[in-house]
């Protein structure tokens, strides 16, 4: 983990409020693995105090790519960077997940910006020659990013849009179910999912029912991103004597085996009170 002032080498407006930011940082690029994220310092803001966590989308030699959806002041600030600008980064952060090199088939389920942490896994499994199937859903055709790259990277790739303007119409989780109905489960299947909570709930419930190993990339409000503040916790399935137990999303995750999560976390009402 380092703190660095990285130079922006490129930024691409992908439409639908998505931006691909590329920065030069040999140290972070060198140390990053799928599942890692960086914490971006947002400057010139009266409202943003904390850094913003953004997944490592991809690494190209000395450069780190971040896929950012502009949804508020912090991500908007990121989206306005220009080549030559300096961005203060902390990273790589997170656990980075590597115990799944024994996977036989990797099923990825991405909802919207949930593609961000999964893309790097796809490049990783491609290199390992492990079969990948991607279900990628978004509101409409415009919000389906990197179509060509994804078709390249995956063995099978199913696009799903809410309005049917591209690929299948409906929800990404319906396509996941249909796929399994057709193909059945297989030894060595691993599911990775990232997206809105209601989507994750469906995926996790499904994986549980089918006994498929399942990893989800979660979000929470992070202070330090590095395990020192205990802000980012997610309730754990296994209770301690003392009552609830939590794990730290920043250092135990953000990509985490779904079987250690307390399922109540996925309920809409979950906010602790």
């Amino acid at each position: 983990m380092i703190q660095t002032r990285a130079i922006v080498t490129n930024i691409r407006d992908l439409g639908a409020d998505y931006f691909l930011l590329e920065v030069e940082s040999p140290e972070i690029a060198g140390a990053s693995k799928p599942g890692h994220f960086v914490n971006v310092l947002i400057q010139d803001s009266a409202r943003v105090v904390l850094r913003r966590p953004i997944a490592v989308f991809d690494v190209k030699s000395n450069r780190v790519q971040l896929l950012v959806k502009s949804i508020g002041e912090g991500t908007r600030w990121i989206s306005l960077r220009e080549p030559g600008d300096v961005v203060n980064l902390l990273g790589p952060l997170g656990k980075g997940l590597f115990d799944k090199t024994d996977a036989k088939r990797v099923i990825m389920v991405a909802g919207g910006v949930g593609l961000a942490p999964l893309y790097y896994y796809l490049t990783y499994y491609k290199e390992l020659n492990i079969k990948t199937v991607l279900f990628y859903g978004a509101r409409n055709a415009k919000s389906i990013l990197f179509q060509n790259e994804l078709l390249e990277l995956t063995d099978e790739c199913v696009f799903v849009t809410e309005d049917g303007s591209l690929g299948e119409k409906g929800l990404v989780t319906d396509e996941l179910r249909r796929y399994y109905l057709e193909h059945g489960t297989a030894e060595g299947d691993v599911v990775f999912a990232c997206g809105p909570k209601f989507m994750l709930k469906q995926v996790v419930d499904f994986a549980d029912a089918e006994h498929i190993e399942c990893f989800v990339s979660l979000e929470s409000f992070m202070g330090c991103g590095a395990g020192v503040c205990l802000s980012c916790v997610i309730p754990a399935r296994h209770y301690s004597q003392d009552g609830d137990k939590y794990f730290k999303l920043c250092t135990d995750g953000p990509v985490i085996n779904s079987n250690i999560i307390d399922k109540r976390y996925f309920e809409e009402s979950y906010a602790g009170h």
Partner: protein
Amino acid sequence: MLATDNPRLRVSRGKLQLKNPVLSASGTFGYGTELQDIAHPEHYGGIALKGITLKPRSGNPPPRLVEAVGGVINSVGLQNDGVQDFVEKKVIPLQSYNTTIIANINGVQLEDYWMMAEKLEGSPIDYIEINVSCPNLKEGGVEFGKSPKSIAAIVSGVRKRTTIPLMLKLTPQVTDIKEIIKAAEDNGLDIVTLINTYPAIVIDINTKKPVLGNIRGGFSGPAVKPMAINLVWEARKATKLPIVGMGGVCSWQDAVEFMLAGADAVAVGTWHFINPGIALEIAEGLMAYMDKNGFESVSEITGYTWRQYNE
């Protein structure tokens, strides 16, 4: 030599003996080693570790952190593995470092503090920081920090059970901080540390619910600094004990301001999240400031402004 080890930064007042005046604030620096790639424990005069309790605690339900203008509000609620685990595991890796170690202790009842002091006596820590100002406990915590009577009972009880120098961490949410300090000093306190966070609530107007899982949290960060400076100024009137000032320290300039107001040392809390490398930067900034302003040692900065109006 790193600025952090420069002898001109040495702090020596009563029981407060630090190689430099920059501490980490409890709860924002974990157990000292997590950030060491960027923020090495040896950059600090001392490191206050995450607050501990007698028994393990799982802490408050999430969300535990929310941003506000000029700061953050946390309701972590002292998630920790208890004092036993602390002395057996957490402290061990820190012993080899050239810095001082501060154990931040918290109680839901009076006797908790006493029993923790007993457990800590003999362990290789340098200071016990009695935290009577955590707004994130349902019982105890900040309630103890509000009355001179409970302060007296806690401090005297802890004092009897340990020879380790004692710090007391004060809440800013009191009518008169001076009477709290006096009660503590009369009962054997060595060092005053202030401030802890301000009780605060944020409500989401769309869900119409408090954002934090525990409803209320504690506000910290740059916005609290002018209020913290005021309380250091007031504390200085009440005592000649060493004072560790904190609340919104984000730069070496902030550190200087706390010291001019009367603080012997400062602690960095929230800003670790934004700039983990801050301790070294503060030490370097202090050196340059001393050179420019003709201060030979950092102790000359302490109370410089305060004295012009109070002596």
